[in-house]
């Protein structure tokens, strides 16, 4: 345990100390019982700082006891008075009871569950049947259970019996019946199914690897890129043999990437320098070159950076100035640097020199601090 734990606890506890107050100190008036009650809960129970749990518990018990007293008073004293007063105090009692039950479900259902039975008996004895029907039964203010409280679960017995008085039934009785029927049905189905369990479909990926995955895993495949569709063929190779979900040993994956890169270099060289490349050929070569450069930026730019210099020199020697200006310079197809690859950082060299040929300049400004 760290030393800090104890110190922090002490500091935070100190601020909570003043929250302790003797139980008999909780006053709920008859004028606005709900407001008084809410204020007490807010200040003595629902506190955000860390207060000793015992303190919170005691505070809630005290407030709950006060609330029970007031509800009892509102309901059972002065019932001989005139009707207006009665309905008003019943209204207050109903509101407070509802609020108190809501808190009891969270803080302490046990006390509530015991007391609400005595309240019910008194209500029935005094024949406050409206209050029984319209408040306790209708608003389900009987004992807390799994429907309204996380201290219970479906193992626990629902308080059906509590409501079965004065011609009432629990509002949730019907849904319990449906559930019970469902459970029986399921139990019988389950026992039928026990013997004949089927494999769940589509859950597991097949253990067999496809032929492509196998090739990716071993690195045994032919990398062929032709002049017709170089870009899509290159992409297809990458997708099948590099971008797989199979875990491939790193050196094999690197070799596969190199193999496909070599094929890309060869076909670009072929397109540009075997005969006179048409505009369409040049577009194709540039498209592939761009994609290949992007991948290099990720998988390792060193080969590309070396080879692109050779390509440039050949392009200039073969006087393919359009390709030089419109593709290599404009599309920034020179060596990878920190702009296109996470292999580099800001203090690495910027490949300005590369572009200073045939009257061109790098299409980007050098970083301000160089």
């Amino acid at each position, binding site marked *: *345990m*760290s030393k*800090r*734990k104890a110190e*922090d*606890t002490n500091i*935070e506890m100190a601020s909570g100390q003043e929250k302790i107050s003797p139980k008999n100190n909780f006053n709920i008036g008859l004028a606005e019982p709900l407001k008084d009650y809410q204020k007490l809960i807010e200040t003595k129970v*629902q*506190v*955000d700082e*860390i207060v000793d*749990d015992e303190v*919170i*518990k005691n505070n809630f018990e005290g407030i709950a006891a006060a609330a029970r007293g007031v509800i009892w008073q509102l309901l059972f004293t002065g019932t001989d008075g005139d009707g207006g007063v009665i309905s008003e105090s019943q209204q207050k009692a109903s509101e407070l009871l509802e609020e108190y039950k809501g808190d009891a479900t*969270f*803080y302490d259902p*046990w006390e509530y569950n015991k007391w609400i039975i005595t309240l019910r008996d008194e209500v029935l004895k005094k024949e406050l049947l409206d209050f029984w029907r319209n408040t306790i039964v209708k608003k389900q203010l009987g004992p807390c259970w*799994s*429907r309204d409280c*996380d*201290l*219970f*679960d*479906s*193992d626990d017995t629902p308080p059906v019996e509590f409501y079965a008085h004065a011609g009432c039934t629990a509002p949730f009785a019907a849904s319990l019946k449906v*559930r019970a029927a*469902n*459970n029986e*049905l*399921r139990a019988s*189905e*389950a026992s039928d*199914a026990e013997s004949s*369990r089927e*494999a*769940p479909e589509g*859950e*597991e990926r097949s253990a067999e690897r496809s032929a492509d995955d196998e090739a990716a895993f071993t690195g045994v495949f032919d990398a062929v890129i032709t002049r017709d569709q170089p870009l899509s063929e290159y992409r297809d190779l990458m997708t099948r043999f590099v971008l797989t979900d199979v875990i491939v040993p790193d050196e094999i994956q690197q070799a596969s990437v190199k193999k496909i890169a070599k094929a890309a270099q060869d076909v670009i060289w072929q397109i540009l320098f075997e005969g006179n490349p048409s505009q369409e050929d040049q577009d194709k070569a540039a498209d592939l070159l761009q994609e290949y450069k992007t991948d290099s930026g990720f998988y390792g730019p060193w080969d590309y950076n070396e080879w692109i210099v050779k390509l440039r020199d050949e392009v200039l020697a073969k006087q393919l100035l359009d390709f030089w200006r419109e593709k290599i310079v404009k599309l920034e197809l020179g060596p990878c640097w920190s702009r296109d690859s996470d292999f580099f950082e800001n203090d690495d060299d910027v490949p300005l020199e590369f572009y200073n040929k045939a009257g061109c300049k790098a299409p980007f400004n050098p970083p301000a601090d160089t």
Partner: protein
Amino acid sequence: MSGLRVRGLLALSATALGAFYLGSRTERLQQSSDVFPRLPGLPTFGTVSAASLVASNVNLTATPSRISEIMKFGFPGLDNVRSHSDYVLSYDRRNRIPHWVFEHLTAESVAKNDSVDRSKCDFKPDESIHPFFRSQNTDYRKSGFDRGHMAAAGNHRLHQKHCEETFYLSNMAPQVGQGFNRDAWNSLEMHVRKLTKSYSNVYVCTGPLYLPHKEDDGKMYVKYEVIGSNTVAVPTHFYKVIVGEAADHKLHMEAYVMPNKVISNDTPLNVFQVPPETVERAAGLLFFDQINRNQLASINGRKV
């Protein structure tokens, strides 16, 4: 001259031999005092009430022997491990809920026991957790979520204290109440308890998951709510990975993942069965690491 040299040699070798024997003796002494292997568990301190009669085989403190019994098949992870008298927990300080809890159930430990009174159990903050990382009742109140047990109270009925220790808020995670914690999830807990009828020992690991989902932009995100002033994480799913040890010592595994939302009552449990390795990948943990999967007799009811 040579006599002097012999004497020097003798003195030297005597010193060396003496040092060697002294060293090996102290090492032996140290080992014998350390009978139990060191376990990465911190017992939480609790007082034992002597008022009630205690069955002789009930541990009331987190003894090393009980912990190694529970953790027989390996630790899923070692972050903030705490041991209680009847379950072991790894606490996720960032999310203020467990990473995992581990339990070992027998028919006896899940049997109805009149000496255990649920109504005496109270959700309480775990004082053994630094205040920065502690969840409180206030975080859960009116959040719309239950204080959902990871180690279920109904699994620990040998003694009142075992049950009470499952009510520490460090053993809770926010769970949807009706339709999940108090229903479907509870059915799964009951199912696990029922397994003690077919297996002499049932080991179960339970914990939260934060699973990604694809949003409209086609990207995957992990998104989960946090509640209260302590920002307690609301997991998207929960798992249970279970191993039952049959009388013939064969091992049977089941794995479940359930979404933390309302699940209709008529959904059968086996809908939620998943291959155990998918849970391991998602949780970043290895369950029952000490068992070779090929040695299992069955996984999710199917022969291996």
